[in-house]
């Protein structure tokens, strides 16, 4: 197979990073990205893009750690390069705070982020309702810049990108040899995955350039993440809610919760409200599947279900998915050489 034709469905952080990995591992592949939405209208654009992992209950911890390590290493190198500003990647320091001490004093990722240590008494005084905390430095991927940067890298690698709603993967079997499914929440409909469920998140993006530190409550519900131009205030975790409409009471509640952690936010300007549906699953689905219909085979690589942790593990799962694409290519080459006999 001289030039395998690969279609990547989905143009959020998972689709674009997976497409990019495929161009890196398989330079002879012709890669096309198909999506009904591109930045700034993807779920990824709503997220703050903080590298703080989400725990998937059914994925082995060592695999999650590898994904996070791969992602952190990759972004660390970009943050240290001349491209950092264009790619929207920057270091940010701050605190994760707990009202009652967490089960695990040290999360599995504590040696991957930078300088993680318990907060001192003096630091905790800033948060009178919290008893314990961790101070560390991590990375943030600002969107749209990061997605636009990925798109630019893809174009440079010869990848075509088209706005197209794919209603059925079989639509693609004539034009493409392999399909990579990075449709996030769309997989619920597209491949009928009932294990995939939305966890609705509402956030506020505000202008508050004096906020340089991130603050995150260990319960994951309240957070303040300073980005390049805006600070993301969150949030909510509404399991099973499909609504993409901002809720005014929720906005008020998020603002109040964040102001109680960082009173200076009272002076924040230009409040923008956004909603995203985290494509949640007990484990991220990074898996090959050979679809079969009327004697025709369609190799599919799935890479979806990252829930609240998409940015944290995106490069790691993209690399795995790219390897699965390589396996698909080998399998196709094997069967095509058999067919020649």
């Amino acid at each position, binding site marked *: 197979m001289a030039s395998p034709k690969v279609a990547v469905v989905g143009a959020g952080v998972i689709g674009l990073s997976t497409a990019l990995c495929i161009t890196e591992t398989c330079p002879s592949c012709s890669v096309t990205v198909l999506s009904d939405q591109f930045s700034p209208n993807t779920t990824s654009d709503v997220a703050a893009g903080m590298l703080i992992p989400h725990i998937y209950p059914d994925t082995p911890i060592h695999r999650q750690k590898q994904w996070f390590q791969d992602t952190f290493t990759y972004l660390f190198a970009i943050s240290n390069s001349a491209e*950092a500003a264009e790619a929207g990647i920057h*270091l940010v320091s701050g605190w994760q705070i707990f009202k009652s001490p967490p089960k695990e004093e040290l999360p599995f990722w504590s040696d991957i982020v930078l300088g993680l*240590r318990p907060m001192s008494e003096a630091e905790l005084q800033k948060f009178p309702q919290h008893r314990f905390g961790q101070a560390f430095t991590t990375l943030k991927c600002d969107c749209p810049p990061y997605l636009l940067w990925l798109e630019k890298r893809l174009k440079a690698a010869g990848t075509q990108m088209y706005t197209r709603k794919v209603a059925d993967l079989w639509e693609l079997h004539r034009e493409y040899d392999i399909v990579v499914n990075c449709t996030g929440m769309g997989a619920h409909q597209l491949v009928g995955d009932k294990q995939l469920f939305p966890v609705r998140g509402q956030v506020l993006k505000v202008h508050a350039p004096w906020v340089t530190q991130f603050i995150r409550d260990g319960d994951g519900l309240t957070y303040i993440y300073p980005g390049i131009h805006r600070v993301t205030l969150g949030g909510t975790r509404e399991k099973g809610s499909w609504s993409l409409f901002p809720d005014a009471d929720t906005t008020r509640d998020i603002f109040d919760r964040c102001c109680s952690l960082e009173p200076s936010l009272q002076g924040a300007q230009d409040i923008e409200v956004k909603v995203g549906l985290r494509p949640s699953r007990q484990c991220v689905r990074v898996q090959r599947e050979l679809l079969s219909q009327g004697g025709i085979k369609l190799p599919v690589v799935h890479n979806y279900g990252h829930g609240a942790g998409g940015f944290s593990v995106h490069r790691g799962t993209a690399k795995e998915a790219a390897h699965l694409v390589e396996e698909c290519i080998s399998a196709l080459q094997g069967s095509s050489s058999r067919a020649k006999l």
Partner: protein
Amino acid sequence: MRVAVIGAGVIGLSSALCIQEQFQSLLPSLELEVYADHFTPHTTSDGAAGLWQPYLSDHGNLQETLWNKETFDHLLGQLHSPAAKEMGLFLISGYNLFREQPPDPSWKNIVLGFRNLTPKELELFPGYSHGWFNTALMLEGRSYLPWLTNRLTQRGVKFFHKKVESFQELFSQGVDVVLNCSGMRSGDLQPDPELQPGRGQIIRVLAPWVKHFIITHDLKSGIYTSPYIIPGSEFTVLGGIYQHGNWSEENSAKDHKSIWDSCCQLLPALQKAKIVGEWSGLRPARPSVRLERESIRLGNLQAEVIHNYGHGGFGLTIHWGCAMAAARLFGTILQEKKQLATPPGPRL
């Protein structure tokens, strides 16, 4: 009781505020006046980036370390107040970098979360073998000085835009006590060979992705001679110039290139940053801060001057401790003049 403050930088305005807050109610006859040839945004304090950080060593000047600590603790206490944003006050974390093992700084236990850098963090800064991480404060002069000015104006303090040529000039008008907060120009009022300019130059850029301060050090060539990057609320300051004895307030092309090249080497992404301004200023450098009373005989009158100048590149860092000390000196003067039974405030 007429009190004249000479100088409207951070030292003059904060000294005026401390005195006003502590003595106005006890001394209804108190009339405070501020005289200056430059007001915000044209003072040295306005040009400074505003990072709270003393020099690495206090050279045995424990008093200065105490004033620094007093300032930090005072500002930390203001962080959650509604005034913080208007004051230009916020928390910031960052890096101090060295090419050799440095001694611990005098302020290690004053700032928050002080620690050594991990090997992984040092990878961010090739060429630097040691470093510190800590969380400190920013106090932007461009916001803080207007805030101080508003507070003073609300409390009836009068401002006069004029260059005072001598202490005598004010005393002959009936001023009782003069606070000399004239920074670099103190030598014009009273010769002081120990006061010398520490010329600095900075480039202002838009680099909002930079969320940490980065201060490099060259222990042999001295403070602020090595590149530094300090992000503020509106722009990021690039610097690394300290020229002892240079009185020029003109921007130098050579210094511009030196700052630009060295900061871009430190943070390659800065090459894409847009330059929005450039500024040169004179740090009023002195082996130690001059904070003391001086009684001047004028005929049969004893005139009192409280000197509060020579804060070098750490004026914002030390200002509140000095203002409180100046206020205590003022209290002593009042006591001697039998204006007060005992001075207010805690005994130090």
